[in-house]
């Protein structure tokens, strides 16, 4: 299990190898990278700064991972989130989930992202041509996180 909140970039190849090298029991590795885009809500974005709540961040991420470990049979999880100033194209977040079988790896990886998006204390401030602005939370992210509450059995197959 690895959790990191860092300013530095990450490398999915290195993180995946660290998880799987020397093991022969992993059948499935699902992963996700979220990247900074050059557009959001109709404006060009030239950069963004990610702020977080240091005393809470790793606790919140660990709690989300614990929940995933209770719901699915997972062999390992890596979760890395960057903070600080990022440019379009820069990777922001990496989630890697290893399991014996693919359905569990996919479900847990998507759950971790949905939970992180609504429960981990990060905030994005974008630099646009019109000035700086805090990104507003999306209703679609709440809906995505709620799926795991209302629709547990559908996703767990």
């Amino acid at each position, binding site marked *: 299990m690895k959790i990191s909140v860092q300013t530095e970039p990450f490398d999915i190849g290195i993180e995946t190898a660290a998880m799987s090298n020397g093991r022969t029991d992993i059948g499935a590795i699902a992963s996700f990278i979220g990247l900074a885009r050059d557009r959001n809500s109709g404006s060009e974005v030239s950069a963004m700064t990610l702020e977080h709540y240091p005393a809470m961040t790793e606790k919140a991420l660990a709690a989300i991972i614990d929940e995933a470990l209770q719901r699915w049979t997972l062999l390992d999880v890596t979760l890395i*989130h960057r903070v600080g100033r990022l440019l379009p194209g820069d990777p922001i977040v990496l989630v890697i989930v290893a399991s014996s079988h693919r359905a569990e790896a996919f479900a847990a990886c998507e759950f971790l992202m949905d939970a*992180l998006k609504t429960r981990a204390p990060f905030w994005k401030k974008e630099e646009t041509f019109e000035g700086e602005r805090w990104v507003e939370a999306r209703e679609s992210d709440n809906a995505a996180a709620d799926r795991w509450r209302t629709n547990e059995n559908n996703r767990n197959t």
Partner: protein
Amino acid sequence: MNCRVLYFARLRERFDLAEESVELAGTPSVADLLAHLQARGGVWVEELGATKSFRVAVNQQLVKTDAHIPDHAEVAIFPPVTGG
């Protein structure tokens, strides 16, 4: 009792305040703290009114407004999160 209150992101900028110490009587809930802060008027009412969307953590755990605040707690008030 006394608690430390932290503000993050847009709320920190709106209040022009990252952190303060707040004294409250008895065994207050998060709702009591919010009422105390709203009583300051102005931006505090604008941002912490019932129709506004914000989150509260007590000792680094997300809570609802009926949660109790222990003495010396660290309370954080912040906008809905936007990481990932």
